Structures are given as C-alpha cells and as structure tokens.
C-alpha cells in the first residue's frame, strides 16, 4: 500500500551488473522522499544512467529491492507497471524522440496513452511548447530540430502529464547555459508543486547554482556531497 509518508523511491542493497560484467551498483541503499530534488553526479560510466533506469523501470536489479511509490518492483504484476510509469516523467539522455512524429505529437504521447481527450491534450501541449520556446516548431519532425530543441521536446514530453517523479538524464547537455538554467527553473517549479525530481548531470557549475542535495556515484556506491534534503546510506 502507498502512503504519503513513504519514500517515492527506495533502494535496498541494490546490486546491478550486465551479464557477467562487473557490478555497476554495489549494495546501493537510499530513499528519496516525496518532494525531494536530487542531483546525481558521477564520472562517465559510473552507473548514473543505470541507476536512473532502475528508477524508471527500464531495468530490474540483479539483487536487492527497488520500491517505487511504496510498491516493490520485483513483486509488482506486469499489468500494473504502466500505471506506475505514468507517474514518472523521464528525460532520456539521447532523448528517444519518435522520428516519425511531430514535436506536438511527441509531447502529446504520454497524454494519449493515458487517454486524455485530444482537445485537452492540444491545449496542454501548446502551452508547454510555448513555455519551452518551441511554439513555432510544433509541426517539425525531430530530425529537423537542433540538439537543444530536441532536448526541450524531450523535457516537455517528460513533464506534460505532471509526473510525481521526474527523472532526467543529462537534461541540459545540449542547451546553452541560459536555457539550462531556464529548464532547471521549470524543474524547480514542478518540484514546488510536489514533483520529486532526480537529475543526473555532469554540469557541476549548474548544480552549484541550486540549493539541492547532490549525490555522487562512484565505484557503485552513492554518497552525498552537499545540499539539505534526502538521505543516502
């Protein structure tokens, strides 16, 4: 059962390895409380993306327990995964935009799979695309957009259904500093209305501009380096 007091994400002694390779995560335990805003940093290959994939149900741990919204992922029936995923917004590192769909259709995708009426979906998508500066690119296909524009589309798609948990993997990697700050302010706004935010980034300078806890993943272990929220063990 889910309750307001439960962490949104809980990892207990989680280990992860790909095939017979080394462990990417090693006995990782932490809990992300509802309404938290986390930065996760680490060198390339440290396992940041794998950690996030466990959070957005793209992977299952090799060992240990992962709980989302109070549900143990290992025992969750497959038919209930979509409902959990609809509460999670994901900004993928390589965007994962659908090339055959327009900007508008890409952003509307989470609303459509959730069965939101088309008129309402259009209203929300138009408003959000205007906010991220893509009002004039609504009909453009992803391959005609710049890297920064694609990233903004990916972010818009992740936040369009106001997720409870927003997970972003290098969400500002392809935008200039001004847009990066603007996007993080968007994440902060979502955080203020209750969305839990987890951002993996390399951008130390950007992280230092915000007063949120930062965790570093190194050697498969997550350790806290600063900020004021959350806890890691």
């Amino acid at each position, binding site marked *: 059962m889910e309750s307001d007091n439960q962490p949104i994400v809980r990892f207990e002694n989680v280990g992860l390895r790909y095939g017979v390779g080394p462990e990417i995560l090693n006995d990782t335990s932490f809990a992300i409380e509802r309404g938290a805003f986390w930065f996760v940093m680490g060198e390339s290959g440290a396992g940041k993306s794998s950690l996030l994939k466990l959070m*957005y*149900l*793209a*992977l*299952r741990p090799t060992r240990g327990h992962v709980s989302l919204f109070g549900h143990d992922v290992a025992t969750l029936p*497959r*038919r209930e*995964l*979509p*409902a959990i*995923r*609809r509460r999670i917004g*994901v900004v*993928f590192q390589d965007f*994962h935009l*659908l*090339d*055959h*769909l*327009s900007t*508008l*259709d890409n952003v*509307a*995708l*989470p609303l*459509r*799979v*959730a069965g939101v009426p*088309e*008129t309402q*979906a*259009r209203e929300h*998508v138009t408003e959000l695309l205007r906010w991220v500066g893509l009002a004039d690119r609504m009909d453009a296909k992803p391959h005609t957009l710049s890297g920064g524009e694609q990233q903004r589309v990916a972010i818009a*798609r992740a936040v369009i259904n106001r997720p409870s948990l927003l997970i972003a993997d290098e969400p500002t990697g392809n935008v200039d500093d001004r847009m990066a700050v603007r996007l993080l302010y968007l994440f902060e706004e979502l955080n203020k209305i209750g969305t839990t935010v987890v951002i993996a980034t390399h951008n130390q300078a950007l992280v230092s501009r915000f007063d949120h806890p930062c965790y570093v993943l190194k050697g498969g272990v997550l350790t806290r380096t600063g900020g004021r929220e959350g806890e890691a063990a």
Partner: protein
Amino acid sequence: MIRRRSALPLATDEASRFLPWLTALMVYLAALALIGAISLRDAAQRWGGQFAGTLTVQIVPAEGVKLHVIDEQVKKAAAILEATPGVVSVKPLDIDATAALLEPWLGRGPLVRELPLPRLIDVRTAPEAKLDIPLLAKQLGDVAPGALIDDHGDWLRSLTALAQAIETISLGVLLFIAMVAIAAMVFATRTGLALHHDVVSVLHMVGARDGYIARQFERHALWLSFKGGVLGLVLAGATLIALDRIGAELAPSLLPRFELGWPQWLALLAVPVAGMVIATVTARVTVMRTLAKAL
C-alpha cells in the same frame, strides 16, 4: 483537433509490404476453394435429387429373340412393376424412343431398330418407398430373362463419395491457407516489433499498456488485410463470373452446370472478412504474447 498519427510507424515497414499481395492471393485461393466446395455439394445434391426415387429397368434381349417377344417381356415386367407397392409410375420406352436416345451416336435409320437394343423402363417411386430390389429382380427375371434393375445407388454413392472427398480437400486447403495467413501475420508482426523495438520501449516508458501497442498493430493488420482482401475479392469475383458465363455457354451435358447462387456470393464476401479477422486477431495475440516477455 490534433492530427493523430500512429505512435508506431508501421506503414513504412518493408516487412509488411508484401502482406496485401499475400492476403489477396490467399483470399483468391480460399474463395475459389470454398465456392468450389459449395458448388460441388450443390451439384451433387441436385444430381442426387434428380435420380433419387427413380429406377431404370433394362431388359437385354437374348440372342435370336424376336422383337414381339421382347415387347411382351416389357409389358409383363411393367405389369409387375405397377403392382409393386411404392411404385408411382412406370414408363416403358418403346423401340422408337430407345433409338431416339441413341441417335446422337448411331444416327437415324431403319438398321438401328434391327440391333439388339436393350429396352428400358423408367420407374418412379415414392420418396419414402423401400423397395426390395433383389426380390423385384427375381420377379422380373421370371418374366424377362436378362432384366436388370439399376437404382442408381452405386452411381449416387460414388458421386457422393467424390463430392465429400473434394469437399474435405477443399476444407483442408482452406485450413492450410488460414495457417499460412496466420504464420505470415505472426512473422510480419514479430518483425514489426523487432524493427520498432525502440519505439515500443518509449511507449512503455511513457506508460502505454501492451493493449495500446497491440491496437496499433491490429489497425495496421486490419488495413493491410482489407486492401489485400478487396483485391482478392475482385479477382475471385471476376474468375467466378467468368466460370459462370463459360458454364452458361456450354451445351447441357452429363456434368452439372457451375452456378453462382447466393451461398456462393455469401461465401465470396465471407472470405475476406474472415481474412481480416484472422489478421487482426493474430496481430493482437502475437503482440500481447511477445510483450508479455518484456519488462
């Protein structure tokens, strides 16, 4: 309104481009097999109906027997037949009528009547009548040595067996075509899932249920099978109409005429509909089963 596009770009798949053509071929073959089976059954029933309740008695003249003796034997045999319970009518064919029957092969002329032609008696029986054929044969043999009774049973049984065999083969062909259709759709759907694995992953990540993804494949399968079905239907219809016209132009013969009635037209329409149902259901089942193995 937002212009809705399929979340999966299935329309551009190379792997499914052959499907309408394959569907058209299968609908064409299935329609011909089905309609062939229905027509044959109808023909066999018509033939069976024509010959049911009839007997033919042949009186073969023995060597040296005079014509008036044969006439006498025919009269006696007819009397026995008329007295037999269940017999509705007895119609002996005189020598002129018998000669007329043979006219296409032997021509017209007095010599034909000199030949030892067997004499025929056409007998009609009541539908529910159960004649004791061996007893009747014995009674007829007493008055007309060489009398033979043909109740058409052997011929009808052979015809029925042939019709049933062809019907079974046709159903086997239909089953085989359905299996090929299912296999082709499973292959195309699995290929589509593999080709669009990344898109399917994204759809799952944004919360799509397997049923949502399956519906995209269902719609695609329905559209492809509709296109193929219409093409197959047109080809099969044209073939059947051509056969119908050829059948109408042929002179009446021993073979039953190929006729297009409402059962045939109904079957013709049912085949592409069945093809669409098979394609749609197969696509859905394949997607649901394949995705059930995913995370």
